[in-house]
């Protein structure tokens, strides 16, 4: 297998998702949390999360809770990878450069 293609189409919604994660890069967020922070509709949000995960910007894992004791199903949590953090920071830095230029 070759090296993973980290290129992701940057839409405004993708930027908003990345911004939510960049507020606290160590934070793990479920899709519902991202929806609350960004207000992006689920039909747009989940493909973006999968796209970013596929490109290696995010990793996801199941929440480590027992559904029967928690009284709710476990959630899928996403977090920025180191690569994702670097690339997202570069994206926002380039936007800032473009705005200031």
């Amino acid at each position, binding site marked *: 297998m070759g090296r993973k293609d980290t290129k992701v189409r940057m839409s405004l919604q993708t930027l908003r998702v990345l911004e939510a994660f960049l507020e606290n890069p160590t934070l793990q967020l479920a899709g519902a949390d991202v929806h609350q922070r960004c207000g992006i509709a*689920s039909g747009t949000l989940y493909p973006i999360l999968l796209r970013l995960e*596929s490109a290696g910007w995010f990793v996801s894992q199941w929440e480590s809770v027992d559904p029967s004791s928690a009284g709710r199903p476990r959630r899928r949590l996403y977090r920025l990878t180191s690569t994702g953090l670097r690339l997202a920071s570069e994206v926002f830095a380039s936007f800032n450069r473009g705005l200031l230029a």
Partner: protein
Amino acid sequence: MIRRGHRAMHPGPEGVIHWLIRHAARGAPDYLSSRLEEEWLADLESRSSALSRVRLACGCCWATVVIATEYAGTGVSTTVPAAAVRGYVPRTEKNFGYFSLGAGTLFLILGLHAALFSGLVTTFSNPASIEVTVLPGR
């Protein structure tokens, strides 16, 4: 893996919402469908209002269309374990201009529904008046 204990039957609108989400997840690529179903049903729990839950269910249907469309362009078999490692391979090079294929299909379906609905409204709001004339002497 879906925990069967959480798959209780939900009557009424709640059942429709759960059915929509499960139906949407089944439309995703095989290796993603069970994950998405569990993920979306878990996210549904965080939505309190009925409208918000319906919106999530409809959004999941739309998300499946987008995911399936992007996946379809890759030509990667669902049986390839390497593809399942990351779970998803996006197609980014295909461009349909201003609208994606999925968006175009949605607009077409919405347009047809709007045309049908307006036709029905027009028909039933202005019923054809039937004039009955009684001729004298008959």
